[in-house]
């Protein structure tokens, strides 16, 4: 389970102005559910995930992951999570198998347990044909499969996904989404950050619409539509974030 209580994160920008990247977010994500964080770029989704994964600390408020406080029990939090993002890369000069083994060992797996688990994820994700190839030489889809392997190798109860399909082709995106549906079925707690409406509609049991660092609306896809009186999630989202259509002057044709 993941829980945040009035979490904030404030930064100073280059001009020393205060930026409230996350401004009092409280939410809960439960096992066996996918909780979507939906927002435009810069809404605060990634900052929230970074706080939950202990890369950065909240300015105020509390957050817990798998029952551990993200500040006082950060090591236990990190041992309980898997994090996958399309922006995170692999070590180009290591083979796919070496990357998986390396991260497995950092997550405390060793000896026969590490070997067995590595073989298992390599088989399940069909990494075998390119397991001994350097990551620099892998295709985007192959890299994504190695990223998934790295994320689930230690069998964490909580998984974070930060726009995992961004930049992927249809087939690779499908692999990722099927994988996420699979981990939900295994009873894991999943937080899924995206700005792609179709993915939210397909995957998420619950959605939190984030804008300017705050939750603007929360609930199932259907309840968001009902709350806003809109027929589509896209329109409901735009209403929640306060988007107003502007008239664009037409350039006269020559």
């Amino acid at each position: 389970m993941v829980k945040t209580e009035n979490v904030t994160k404030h930064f100073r920008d280059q001009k020393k102005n205060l930026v409230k990247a996350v401004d009092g977010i409280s939410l809960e994500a439960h096992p066996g559910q996918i909780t979507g964080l939906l927002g435009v770029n810069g809404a605060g989704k990634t900052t929230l995930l970074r706080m939950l994964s202990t890369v950065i600390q909240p300015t105020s408020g509390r957050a817990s992951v798998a029952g551990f406080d993200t500040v006082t029990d950060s090591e236990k939090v990190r041992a309980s999570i898997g994090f996958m993002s399309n922006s995170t890369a692999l070590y180009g000069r290591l083979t796919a198998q070496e990357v998986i083994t390396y991260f497995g060992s950092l997550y405390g797996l060793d000896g026969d347990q590490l070997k067995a688990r590595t073989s298992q994820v390599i088989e399940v994700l069909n990494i075998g044909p390119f397991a001994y190839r350097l990551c620099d030489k892998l295709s985007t889809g192959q890299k994504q499969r190695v990223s998934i392997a790295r994320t689930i190798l230690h069998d964490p109860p909580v998984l974070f996904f930060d726009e995992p399909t961004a930049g992927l082709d249809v087939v690779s995106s499908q692999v990722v989404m099927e994988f996420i549906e699979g981990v939900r079925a295994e009873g894991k707690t999943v937080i899924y950050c995206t700005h792609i409406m179709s993915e939210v509609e397909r995957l998420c049991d619950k959605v939190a619409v984030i804008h300017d660092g705050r939750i603007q609306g929360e609930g199932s896809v259907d309840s968001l539509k009902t709350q806003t009186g809109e027929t589509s999630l896209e329109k409901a989202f735009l209403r929640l974030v306060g988007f107003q259509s502007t008239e664009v002057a037409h350039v006269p044709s020559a």
Partner: protein
Amino acid sequence: MSPALKVGIKEWKEMMRDKRVRSGAFVMPLVLVFMFVALFGFMLSAVTDVKAQRVHVVKTDSPLVAPLKKAFDIKDVGTVAEGVKMVRDGKARLVLEFQASKGGQYTVLAHYDPKEQTGEVAFRMVQGVFSKINEEALRAFLKSQKLPANAGQAIDFKAAPVVVGDAKSASDLIVSLLPYLLVLFAFTGGLAIASDLVAGEKEKNTLETLLITPIQRSQIVLGKTGALALVCFASSLSGLLGFVICSFAKIKGTEMIFKDGLGVSPVGIGVIILLMLPLVLFFASILIAVSAYAKNTREAQTYLGLLNLVVVLPAVFSQVIGLTDLGKQQWINLVPILNTATNIRSVLLGKPEIVPILMTVGVSLVIALIAGWIAVKLFLREEVLTRI
């Protein structure tokens, strides 16, 4: 296995697969030393190989030409004007003009361009041959007068060397060059890859996946620093290996440089390694700290370029420290980098001293720890670590 060791092994593996590390830290020091020694040998031959010196002589029947012919490659020229023109045109280094003997003394004019080093060298060599003839003539005269051979000298000045430390020592070139190169290679060996280790990871977005593993950030710093220190050390050893190979290679002209091999005992090598170990740890820590502070590899490389100058300066000074008394003063052992180079110099001279060596190792360890502490602090600052 400790998490730091796991990180270190992974970094080492990655670095060994990087061409920049293989060439910059392993091949280049070896090749550079070999090339430098070979070049120095060639230059040394040029200035010491008397037979290779071509000297022009204006046609003469002077008996002095015979001893010159034994020593030099003598070529005749027709007239003085012709010889001077050859000097002006760069076709002759030195033209000797023998004048008529006055009262048993010969006058020889040496025409050469003093701005040309080859002319100057040839002049000194001929001067040496004539000095010997003068000394022999004086000795013969004194003998004929039944006087001792040194009767013509008001002062009989003789060297009486005092052996300090080991009787054997490295040659002057090795003493002035090796400490500088060992220190420099230790730094430059790690320089090429340092920016990749943290700044590069920020840029490629691999750092965050490492940060969300359960290991402590200090362990990440330790692992990366250890691996980089090993590369720095290997680079330095590669330079040393270059000198060892040269000492066995018998390159023409280097006989004087390697007359006693490298001139360092196995214990001396051990002391050099002892001096280098904390220094490479310091270099690795400071390189990691800079890499952690920088937003990206480009910014890191800018900082590292400036840092390079800070390292080069004391290293260069170590080459000429023997010309001053500074090397013997204890406070030098408190100056990072310079202290290591100065103590390596003492080892090469065959007179290492335990107190300065221990002071140097201690100072290097302390600054390595400070640099390591800074690197860890930077790793704990999220605004430094997450900015790109």
